[in-house]
């Protein structure tokens, strides 16, 4: 089965450039603003959208994304509303790949089968679930693949060559390489180390490899895009959003633009890598 993700990476490959993958939190700071932000991302140059599912206890995330999730939850965001947001986004955009990223518990409580059916109907293309390693593939990964969704796995600096085949076995869409051992938004990624890691993973898979964690600037996004099939930026966008809020944490007239402008600048960085690579 071909998803929007597969189609998008095939297009980018033929254009000879890397993907720019953006992450924002669903419902941050509120549902209506969040929908406007998600709609603005492709227009500003995002090739793939990762949409965070808010969770009270995001164990792999740094303070920025934790706070974004809590802002969304405080304003009544739920997994059900996250799927509604995707459905509304799909009314105007049927090509940009959209991946839900989060933790397993809200999905487990929603009900795995019902979630997969509703996600597919809403227009979700893939899932990144941080706390489901291959050892727990029976929970969601295998059912998701059967339902026609991509299951995108995280590979990390601690995933050695012996373990990589297990990590890649049921992975589809793309591989998300976590550039540092750490949480989101912490240390900066080293482009050379990333290049070696990407080359190592490429020996095990033909899937595109996108790299995230610690990429904040157009320059960094470009440096990574020269070494991988995609650069992922999350925390920097979430921080730009947060800096546009008023003292009570509510959206202002600047909020959507703040995210869109940084997205456009980062997209320029990634596209700059194309020439460098040629």
């Amino acid at each position, binding site marked *: 089965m071909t998803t929007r993700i597969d189609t998008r990476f095939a297009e980018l490959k033929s254009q000879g450039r890397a993907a720019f993958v953006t992450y924002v939190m669903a419902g941050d700071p509120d549902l209506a603003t969040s929908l406007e932000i998600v709609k603005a991302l492709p227009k500003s140059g995002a090739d793939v959208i990762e949409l965070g599912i*808010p*969770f*009270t*206890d*995001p*164990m*792999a995330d*740094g*303070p920025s994304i*934790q706070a974004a999730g*809590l802002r969304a*939850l405080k304003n009544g965001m*739920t*997994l*059900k509303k996250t799927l509604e947001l995707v459905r509304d986004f799909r009314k105007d955009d049927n090509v940009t790949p959209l991946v839900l990223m989060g*933790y*397993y*518990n*809200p*999905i*487990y*409580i*929603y009900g795995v089968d019902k979630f997969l059916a509703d996600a597919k109907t809403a227009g979700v293309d893939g899932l990144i679930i*941080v*706390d*489901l*390693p291959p*050892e*727990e593939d029976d929970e969601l990964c295998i059912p998701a693949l059967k339902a026609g969704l991509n299951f995108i*796995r*995280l*590979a*990390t*600096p*601690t*995933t*050695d060559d012996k*373990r990589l085949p297990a*990590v890649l076995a049921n992975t589809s869409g793309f591989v998300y390489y*976590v550039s540092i*051992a*750490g*949480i989101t938004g*912490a240390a900066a990624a080293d482009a050379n180390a990333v290049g070696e890691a990407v080359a190592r993973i490429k020996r095990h898979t033909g899937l595109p490899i996108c790299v995230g964690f610690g990429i904040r600037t157009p320059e960094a996004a470009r440096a990574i895009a020269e070494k991988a099939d995609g650069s992922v930026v999350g925390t920097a966008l979430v921080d730009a959003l947060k800096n546009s809020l008023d003292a009570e944490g509510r959206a202002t007239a600047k909020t959507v633009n703040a995210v869109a402008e940084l997205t456009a600048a980062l997209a320029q960085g990634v596209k700059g890598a194309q020439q460098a690579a040629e």
Partner: protein
Amino acid sequence: MNIAKPNSYRSGPDERGHFGIFGGRFVAETLMPLILDLEKGYTAAKADPAFQAEMNGYLKNYVGRPSPLYFAERLTEHLGGAKIYLKREELNHTGSHKVNNVLGQIMLARRMGKKRIIAETGAGQHGVATATLCARFGLECVVYMGAVDVERQQPNVIRMEMLGAKVMPVQSGTRTLKDAMNEALRDWVTNVHNTFYCIGTVAGPHPYPTLVRDFQSVIGNETRAQMQEIEGRLPDSLVACIGGGSNAMGLFHPFLDDPSVEIFGVEAAGHGLTQLHAASIAGGRPGVLHGNRTYLLMDADGQIQDAHSISAGLDYPGIGPEHSWLHEVGRVNYLSATDDEALAAFQLLSKLEGIIPALEPAHAIAKVMELAPKRPRDHLMVVNLSGRGDKDVPQVGDILRGKK
């Protein structure tokens, strides 16, 4: 799925860390290789007689084991029923049962060549035990503690700092034990190469629930031998408080296959089960958090809810996965005690036996006050006195004087 009653209640978990549907390894990929390493390291240590011998030496001469099994004569007379014995874990070095597990994990960390130890703590008892053994073995120690708990358990914060540990107050989320655990996991993901995560309870990803249980089983094994010596037979019932449930699992596990032994776990009912509480089995349902599937307090969307208990050590919205399984198969009865009941039990034990219990086991004593009078005088009831109350004296003093 295995629905039939098992032949043994002591054979779990399976090789993937499951107790029935509970347990498992729900962690980020960065941690997965470390958890597999830990499992390998623990399996090797368990099979090495030298490891056990060295641990037994420290348990005897450093921790002060065996802890006494003490006949609580005046409490028994007062309640007028079962003959009540206290397993005196509060007499251990550092003042609680936590040291049994920490000793095991620190020795394991040494075997595995790890030089930096991190831990989460609620009441501070696990943090103090970890800081103590890190001082003893010259290891770096970082303890994550919710900012709310730092405030209400000041004596333990001061102790940890005196022992050379760095206490990190956690400001995220609800600023209690669950957030301390999140923060410890974040530290571990960041410092994978030199760091050992010393988990304080029978929860977290496999193999933690098993190895913590094994290290705490010294409590139940001693109780068996001591009761045999004193009364010439097995006890008739066991009672222990449960936050994550390590003191309870340590007492219960060696008795699970003795059908004549009734077993009671006591969760914290806080202000009452219809209000804010910390009773995951009574008020929660199965979900996935902190690396395992278990009973959790959460809302309809799967968001984790705030727990509340007067006792910082029980103030956690989950419970160890093996307890969830023992509840579902019906081997252990899970009860709950409110803040007020625990406070009354705290005072009763202090006045009748001259033993000031920690607020955590005061919850177990509270249920003993209900269970013992309904049982005959030849019924032998063991309650795990898992910690001493020194740390709670300022807090309880304020409450009794009506300040809070």
